[in-house]
């Protein structure tokens, strides 16, 4: 399964055009919504429209981490979507409060719930002195802890989403869930105060036009905690500190991993990179 995902609904036409042009077999889905921003949720008619597209096998709605001031509205929205009776609808949940409070049929836990230490760009430096035992334990997902896994299963979770990072994938293969891996970019952090909104000086929800494609961030000066001032990064820091990508209130890093063998699907974020036949081929071959 390949899922092409976006929260910029003007891209749906280009995405469906690509699906029709490129023969990638069956099991193509379109995902709409956001992991971390309530203002990027599609209107319910838009979800219904996407689900009517003949070229896809299903639609995925991604629901975000949800602050209290939006909580009742998002609960109502999720219940409304669930009631639409959309064929092959999959709902991804990134907020434990939403998962606990809403009636969702076979929900999937997103990256707001499923974590991996490997999403730290310098995880090998952090783990450098630890025993192999500790390293192995940390380079799993939080659901590899059987108590957490059981708890989420008891809450109805049937699938999870992870970053396509090699050790995370290896750990996820051991889980008794359907696993969908995000191709190309791993989430490094989510923020509540939207970095993109602040940067452009446009307040939520009017800022959504600015996060349809990512900003590329290259470390220029570290903020030194000793001197409380900026200083150039030294060579060791420069070596481990990757280029970051900011899309709205989510920070990503690139992942070159192309081995999604054993996964139940890969997800391509069409807001991080323009969808192309090449990306579809790469992501499709990774499974």
């Amino acid at each position: 399964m390949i899922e092409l995902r976006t929260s910029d609904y003007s891209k749906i036409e280009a995405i469906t055009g690509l699906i029709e042009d490129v023969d990638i077999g069956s099991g193509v889905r379109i995902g709409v919504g956001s992991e971390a921003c309530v203002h990027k949720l599609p209107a319910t008619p838009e979800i219904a429209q996407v689900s009517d597209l003949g070229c896809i096998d299903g639609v995925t709605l991604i629901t975000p981490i949800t602050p209290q001031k939006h909580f009742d509205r998002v609960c109502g929205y999720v219940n409304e979507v669930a009631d639409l009776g959309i064929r092959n609808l999959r709902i991804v949940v990134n907020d434990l409060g939403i998962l606990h409070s809403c009636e969702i049929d076979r929900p999937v836990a997103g990256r707001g719930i499923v974590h991996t230490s490997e999403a730290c760009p310098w995880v090998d430096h952090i783990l450098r002195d630890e025993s192999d035992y500790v390293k192995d334990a940390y380079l799993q997902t939080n659901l590899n802890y059987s108590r957490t896994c059981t708890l989420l299963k008891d809450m109805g979770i049937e699938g999870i989403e992870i970053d396509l990072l090699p050790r995370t994938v290896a750990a996820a293969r051991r889980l008794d869930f359907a696993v969908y891996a995000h191709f190309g970019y791993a989430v490094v952090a989510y923020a509540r105060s939207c970095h993109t909104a602040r940067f452009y000086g446009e307040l939520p929800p009017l800022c959504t036009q600015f996060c349809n494609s990512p900003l590329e961030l290259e470390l220029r000066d570290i903020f030194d905690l000793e001197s409380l001032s900026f200083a150039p990064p030294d060579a060791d820091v420069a070596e481990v500190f990757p280029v970051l990508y900011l899309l709205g209130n989510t920070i990503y890093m690139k992942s070159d991993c192309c081995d999604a063998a054993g996964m139940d699907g890969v997800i391509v974020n069409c807001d991080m990179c323009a969808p192309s036949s090449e990306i579809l081929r790469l992501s499709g071959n990774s499974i």
Partner: protein
Amino acid sequence: MNLMAPADSFETAIGVIEAGADEIYLGLENENFVNLNLSGRGRGCNVPTLSELEEIVEFAHERGIPVDYTVNTPFLSDELEEMFISHVMAGVDAGVDALIVGELGAMQLINEMDTGLPVHASVLLNTFNYGQIELLKSLGASKIVLPFKMELAEIRALSESGIDLEIFGQFGCSNINGTCHLIHSAGESINLGLPCRSNYHVGGEVQRVHPILDAGTDCSLCSIPDLLEIGVSALKIVGRGMNHEMIREIVHIYRRCIDLALDGGDPGAIREYVLTEEPFWQMLCEQRRCKYLKTPITDSYV
């Protein structure tokens, strides 16, 4: 509203208690780790030895100060479970008063351990809404530490859920704590600084150098009257592993400001006090890193 302060040694504990903390929180180093820990913080942020922890607990209890024990690792695995149980029991046996837990499975495990101590849900669980509070209550939590980035109206709404709420007063992260992997102060041998407050070259059409990820909020003094009125259980100061003198001074200032508010002082009186008596606070005011007031950072909350 209690003032809760960090401690990472007997010396810090004495300092923050003498400066006016009503409660303290701390973690304990663990010999199975080099840089990491089960306390939610890395090397150098925790009480070094069990005997020092016992000394702190005794000193605090003699003064009626409760001690919360941080076992809030955001990550646990089957392989680490026995180690975690031993680590929790070290604190329990030392006489701590509550356990701060940061992982759902760990919360279940601690319930099964039946330590007799209250369980507090860590900030690392990212409890943004009423639904999650209900979930954590069902898992045995008796207090919730709310995320760094909350609006006053949200804290007020969540306070109606009938559970104690603890919120952050001083300092805090730019990103959502339990989801941020820009890990620092975890025993690294290279100087990563504070990645979220660093300068980045923003590429593409923009081409600009900017601290674009900096959404740190550092101060809540002017909001103390509102927080008292809402009924927040504790106001927490961040700072395990930070400079002891600075933490002690911050605790002293918060103590004075809470007392001022309890005596009827409004935000204006608090601000006047702190800027007159503690001129260095001017720098924080100028940066507008207010946690619960309207600023460009809080205006940009999704």
